[in-house]
């Protein structure tokens, strides 16, 4: 049996009154690609941020195989957030080097790793260019190279193919599979079932902050007695998705009053619309 690398035990995460994740437990094993699948606002990004040590759990623990909280072991992780997070006035290599230096990795080692993966992603000639003019696909690939440069044990990818053209998306998926084949572990968040089926060895379906299913694509079909993953997903998430909260910060009484003061009342009848004109 593969070795457990990351354990999420009874994790709950609250933002003010919103319970983003409810008592989640999950084991991530070495050498697998785990797909986190769910609709917008399901809790995928929150779970990913907990795994990356950006958020602290409200209760429960997120620990690595050595029992250390993930927050203290971030050098074990490589993270590609949804926004990619590249500095536009730095070159692709400078972006990568900055992160690898923060991980305490020598420039020569980071360069050797970057060069190897850049070849796969057809990015080698672009490493010296400022990322300002990069397409979405090039930014995504640079962020991926940046996450790999320090040689992480676990790679966390948040919607890595969102907004990419078909060719770029294929290249990214191929690299992810190659990393798995070389013994790497990848956690892959997506809301596209077809993509998850293509790439992932194991799919975790998250809905309204809960894990609804966890297993291989075949196992999910068997458990739900359906013919396709789409049907399986629908049968597992029949309850209505909760409304996504725009901002998880608390609004003060004064700020709320001030905002409402300058927000016109939304008309509810044709008569009110005509009166407001």
């Amino acid at each position: 049996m593969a070795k457990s690398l990351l354990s999420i035990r009874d994790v709950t995460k609250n933002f003010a009154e919103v319970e983003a994740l409810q008592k989640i437990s999950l084991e991530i094993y070495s050498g697998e690609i785990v797909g986190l699948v769910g609709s917008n606002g399901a809790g995928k990004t929150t779970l990913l941020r907990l795994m990356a040590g950006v958020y602290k759990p409200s209760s429960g623990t997120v620990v690595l195989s050595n029992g250390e909280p993930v927050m203290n072991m971030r050098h074990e992780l490589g993270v590609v957030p949804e926004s990619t997070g590249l500095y536009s006035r730095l070159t692709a290599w400078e972006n990568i080097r900055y992160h690898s230096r923060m991980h305490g990795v020598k420039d020569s080692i980071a360069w050797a790793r970057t060069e190897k993966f850049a070849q796969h992603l057809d990015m080698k000639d672009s490493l010296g260019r400022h990322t300002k003019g990069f397409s979405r696909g090039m930014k995504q690939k640079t962020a991926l190279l940046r996450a790999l440069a320090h040689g992480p044990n676990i790679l966390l990818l948040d919607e890595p193919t969102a907004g990419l053209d078909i060719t770029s998306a294929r290249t990214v998926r191929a690299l992810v599979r190659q990393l798995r084949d070389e013994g790497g572990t990848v956690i892959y968040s997506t809301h596209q079932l077809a993509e998850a089926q293509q790439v992932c060895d194991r799919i975790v379906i998250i809905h309204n902050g809960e894990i609804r299913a966890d297993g291989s694509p075949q196992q999910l079909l068997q458990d739900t007695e359906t013919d396709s993953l789409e049907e399986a997903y629908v049968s597992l998430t029949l309850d209505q998705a909760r409304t996504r909260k725009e901002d998880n910060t608390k609004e003060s009484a004064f700020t709320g009053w001030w905002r409402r003061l300058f927000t016109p009342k939304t008309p509810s009848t044709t008569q009110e619309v005509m009166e407001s004109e």
Partner: protein
Amino acid sequence: MSEGSFRRVRSIAKKEVVEFTRDWRTIIAIIVIPLLMFPLLFILFPVLLESEAAELDALELSIIIQTDGLPENLAENISLSGMNYSIEELPETSSLAVPGQDLDRVRNSSTDAVLRFESNEDIWNYAILHLSTSERSNEARYRILNVLSDWENSEIRERIDQGGLDVNETLDPLRWDGEISAGDVATSGEQSGMILSLFIPLVLAIWTYSSAIQPSIDMTAGERERGTLEALLCLPCSRMELLFGKWLAVATITGVGVLLQIFGLLFAIGYLATSSFIGVPQLSIVSILLIVLSIMLFAIMVVAFELALAMRSHSVKEAGSILAPALMLILFPALFTQVINLDGIEGFWFAIPVVNILLALRELLMNRVITEHVIIWAVSSVIYASLAAYYASKQFSREDIVTSLS
């Protein structure tokens, strides 16, 4: 601080400075503007004023003199002052200053000014009608007043002489004996320190705050808005290292801006003034060290405070709308400090935030090291700087800094 921690802080600060200075607008904001602002203001502005004044001097003006008899030498002087005049009868008005029927002539610029001049036995009455919103009319009034003043002086001297008195003894009975500057026992170095103490603290306070606004916002709310902060928070560095690295970068950028501005200011003053007006202030080693300490404490407090406020904000726009008006918190105490009399000043002034450092700088630039004051401003500044740093660390520790409005 461990070696790894120091390396990460240095990496953050270095990257922030490199990224910030790659924008040409930043170079203009932190190097070109501070360096050129005062030289442009102090050197080019007087040149512009001089050329405008020369243009006014060259103007041929036309005025009307309403009089019942103009002394001959006065008429001659008016002609010599570049004014053409025509003589009219004095109008019937309750006083000479009432424009009456001449109001429209002056307002519609058909004449530049009207001089009314009336003899009343040994006394002369006069009034000048002019339009204060017209440069020509103002110039005409100015020239007429000069001519009248000269004429009045010669009239006074003539009358004293006719009365059998000595003109010089009568008009100048009290006289300074010797060089006026010789009576000042302050050294030129002390005088220079006094002059510098009037504006260096003010410039330092305002420029430190204002030049830190842009980098503070860019490195916090800007990162948050652009989505680069999340990737940064995934790295194995603590939030305190992040804060310290960013503080170091903002402080460096601000420090360069302030130094360049002071350099520009001193250059402008040195260019304009004679060497006796301003020179090198006479400062002891202790004063210099205390000046450096006070500036450092002030910078720690201001930059930490700005970083905290910017980090609290969800967007660049929000951060700007908070930090720009907060300049008043520096501006008012800075202006207020300029008018406080330092002789016999009470100790509590040196405990008031912002005011304490500015007063300390004023004292130290005059080479006054008063132990009681030094203890009060140093301790209170350390407390304020610590509070600002603590507040900033609280803001950097917030979980919601990873989210933005965009």
